[in-house]
């Protein structure tokens, strides 16, 4: 008898979620994690003595169903009672503040328009919400269940009413900029509102593609997509997931890098039969589920010689270059932002949409902008154990920083970007530089190396029209099963995509278990 029914490669949140569902259905599950800890891009680690941080620093759309199904509350997880404010920073301190349905710092007209805008987008987000937790139909599918998914989407669209349905069809692939220009006057408001459509992607306000879809995806979350830091921090979320997995009987091995998915070949074809670790140890299992990114899964772990030619070429062409760098600062006190009583919101430095666009322009040619745009939080304000008493951690997502820098990522290039980012933040938070005990900048290439994610990509592979829904990551592997029987995918590279959400892990488990809903 095989020791395990299923081996899951990668203990990111999706791997843990998938594992827990399977174990709860009676499977014996082993999770292999290459790094020393669980959580993947959400893992919390010490980056300076006494200071801890996670790459992913807030949640916006973590699945409430997963929280319920896995009893995460019983494992210590509490979502934040209220979301954070999102603050568009200005140098003078006349910030634009978004808090729920309210917006401050803009004209009365923009306030009114914001209500309309939110109402419409929320309707669209609600329309799509059920589909993030469904398996997408196969292209050319003819099974009743698959056709029903299409039919349901059509029906829900129809139920929007003629006008809103038309609007949805019009808006879904619109550049964020066009939508913002239609609604608002305030430049900073427009930049802040488009942010959640752009972050993590190779897209800027003028890109027509999936930026609105990405916004709607995030808006499926608990507080209509407003960001929050759970009570125990991101660390608390990962701990709860880990604990739920262990309680369900999942075995988790860290420091165990999968080197190869073992494939059994006989007259009937290929079948995944286990995993060979990088150190040569072989472990058999009935099924293998990869929670790592699709390129890594197929090109490294499976190997092209086991794959079809056209499929391989589609995987090779997946767009996996990340454009977000991480800045971590250990501070000896609370940073003081002009005009902000407490830096407890999610602060965005992007004065207008052109600023975002220009930052993107440089990255297209392998450079980073001297005026990067960014999102900043001070997670230690929400989760005090991240820093010693009275001291703080500043965490920032910096856009757009190319994975492939012209001339390569040298120590010097990294240091220059770090300095530039700190300079910019210090313009908004004077005195910041004197507070810095330690700084760390992680480029997408660093994230790739440290977190074993190809390209250091936020979503493992671009979340764009050509790579989403029934095309995610590509047809032939978009229903969590793969061309290799016995091998499944369950990471951010699968539908619905990345971010701390849990959809891929949840959906994959359901497919593996052959359950209907």
């Amino acid at each position, binding site marked *: 008898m095989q020791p395990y029914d299923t081996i899951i490669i990668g203990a990111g949140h999706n791997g843990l979620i998938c594992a827990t569902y399977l174990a709860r259905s009676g499977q014996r599950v082993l999770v292999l994690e290459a790094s020393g800890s669980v959580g993947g891009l959400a893992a919390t680690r010490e980056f300076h003595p006494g200071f801890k941080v996670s790459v992913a620093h807030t949640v916006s759309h973590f699945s409430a169903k997963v929280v319920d199904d896995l009893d995460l509350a019983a494992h210590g997880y509490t979502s934040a009672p209220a979301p954070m404010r999102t603050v568009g920073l200005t140098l003078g301190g006349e910030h634009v503040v978004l808090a729920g349905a309210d917006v401050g710092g803009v004209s009365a007209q923009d306030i009114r328009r914001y209500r309309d805008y939110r109402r419409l987008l929320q309707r669209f987000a609600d329309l799509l919400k059920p589909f993030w937790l469904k398996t997408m139909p196969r292209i050319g599918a003819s099974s009743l269940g698959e056709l029903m998914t299409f039919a349901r989407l059509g029906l829900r669209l129809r139920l929007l009413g003629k006008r809103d349905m038309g609007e949805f069809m019009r808006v879904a692939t619109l550049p964020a900029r066009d939508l913002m220009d239609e609604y608002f006057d305030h430049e900073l408001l427009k930049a802040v509102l488009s942010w959640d459509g752009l972050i993590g992607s190779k897209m800027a306000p003028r890109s027509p593609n999936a930026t609105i879809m990405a916004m709607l995806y995030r808006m499926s979350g608990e507080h209509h997509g407003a960001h929050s830091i759970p009570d125990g921090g991101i660390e608390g979320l990962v701990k709860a997931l880990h604990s739920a997995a262990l309680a369900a009987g999942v075995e988790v091995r860290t420091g165990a890098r999968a080197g190869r998915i073992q494939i059994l070949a006989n007259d009937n074809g290929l079948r995944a039969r286990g995993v060979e670790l990088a150190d040569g140890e072989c472990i058999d299992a009935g099924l293998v589920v990869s929670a790592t990114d699709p390129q890594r899964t197929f090109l490294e772990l499976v*190997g092209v010689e086991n794959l079809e030619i056209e499929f391989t070429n589609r995987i*090779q062409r997946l767009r996996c270059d990340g454009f977000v760098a991480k800045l971590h600062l250990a501070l000896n006190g609370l940073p003081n932002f002009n005009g902000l009583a407490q830096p407890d919101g999610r602060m965005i430095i992007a004065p207008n949409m052109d600023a975002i666009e220009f930052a993107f322009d440089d990255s297209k040619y392998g450079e980073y902008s001297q005026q990067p745009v960014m999102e900043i939080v001070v997670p230690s304000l929400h989760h005090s154990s991240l820093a010693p008493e009275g001291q703080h951690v500043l965490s920032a997502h910096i856009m757009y920083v190319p994975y492939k820098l012209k001339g390569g990522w040298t120590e010097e290039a990294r240091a220059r970007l770090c300095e530039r980012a700190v300079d910019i933040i210090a313009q908004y938070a004077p005195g910041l530089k004197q507070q810095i005990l330690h700084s760390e900048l992680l480029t997408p290439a660093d994230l790739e190396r440290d977190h074993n994610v190809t390209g250091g990509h936020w979503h493992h592979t671009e979340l764009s029209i050509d790579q989403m829904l029934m095309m995610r990551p590509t047809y032939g592997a978009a229903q969590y099963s793969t061309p290799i029987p016995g091998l499944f995918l369950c990471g951010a590279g699968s539908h619905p995509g990345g971010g701390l959400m849990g959809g891929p892990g949840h959906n994959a488990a359901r497919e593996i278990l052959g359950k209907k809903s």
Partner: protein
Amino acid sequence: MITTMNPESSAIDPYAGERLKESHFHPRQAALNLRDAWSSWNGYKFADYYYDEEYEYFCVRNSCATYDICPMQKYYVSGKDAQAMLNRMVTRNIANMKEQRVTYVCWCTDEGRMVDDGTIFKLGPDKYMLTCGSPCLAWLRKSAFGFDALTIEDMSDEIAALSFQGPTSCAVLKKMGLAGIDTLKPFGIMHFPFAGSSGEPLMVSRTGFTGDLGYELWIEPGLALDLWDALYAAGSDYGIQPYGEAATNMARLEAGFIMPGREFNEALKTVHYQHDQTPFELSLGWLVDFKKPHFNGRLALLKDRDNGPEYTLVKLDIEGNKPAEESHLYSNERCTKEIGYVTSAMWSPVVKANIALAMIKTQYLQGDIWAEIYYGRELRHNSKVVRCTLQDKPFWAPGRARQTPPPAY
């Protein structure tokens, strides 16, 4: 208005880029192309026939004849990963191929539809040559992704190649001085010194597309005309003659070989769903080896094998002497139930039979097969319905095609 021609610009050919390329053997072939019957193949000027297609066909069958295969596509695939890469691309197992051997292969899309067929020459431990009818570089590049110790070179224009077929072909090569050529076995390769050049610049393989005794000669372009001259000098007493596309098409049909555009539609050029074919449909199941390591289209082909292909390519012996070109096939004489269609047909002079290749719905193979044949006689259109009989052997497969040494003529 009268314009005078600029004497300088008149020297410039405004259609230069559109004109057909000339094969390495063109000067000799042009001189013999009495009918100027040119068409094209892969951008090369290419003879349909030189004098008379039937005459050329009879040379192939009764003496010997040359067929220009310069336009055929030739690729060197070399490096440590060459074998693994090719073996994953083609359906046949090439892992056990010996050096200086040739094997017939086909390759398929992910869905198991045939992209093309061709031959693989194993020229060294890590060196192969792939030949095929249509350009294949893009597919080779795709197939090569992930195999790093590999180079692919398009040699199509860099190698002059001449097919030399017919019962007297071995005798002529011997007379030309190719010592030991009679020991070369079917699908074997030998190398020879030639024309005082250093080394062994002339490669000869015992291969061809006629189903008869025959060879293919491979040489660097600079020696192409010398090769031609030497061959034609040696062959003058043996009835040597160039033959074109028309005679090839007759000979290959008698041998039961398939042609793109006739029996199969190259999958990458097929627009309509499943208007291309699987090897099983083309009765090339013997080329598909499910015991070898993974190869492209495997899963789809396994299904095709187990479910049985919708159509099967068969050989037909047809009553009467009217070629069943483009005929529809029926399961009954009244022609109410259509079951397939003829892909290629001819009256075969050597077999003295009315033969055809046809695609028939697999489920009807056991029953009666009738062909509705249309034919013209001095502008009057006629049709008739005749019985067809399945043939399982090639129509033409003389013993000399396989014998080593081949019988002397």
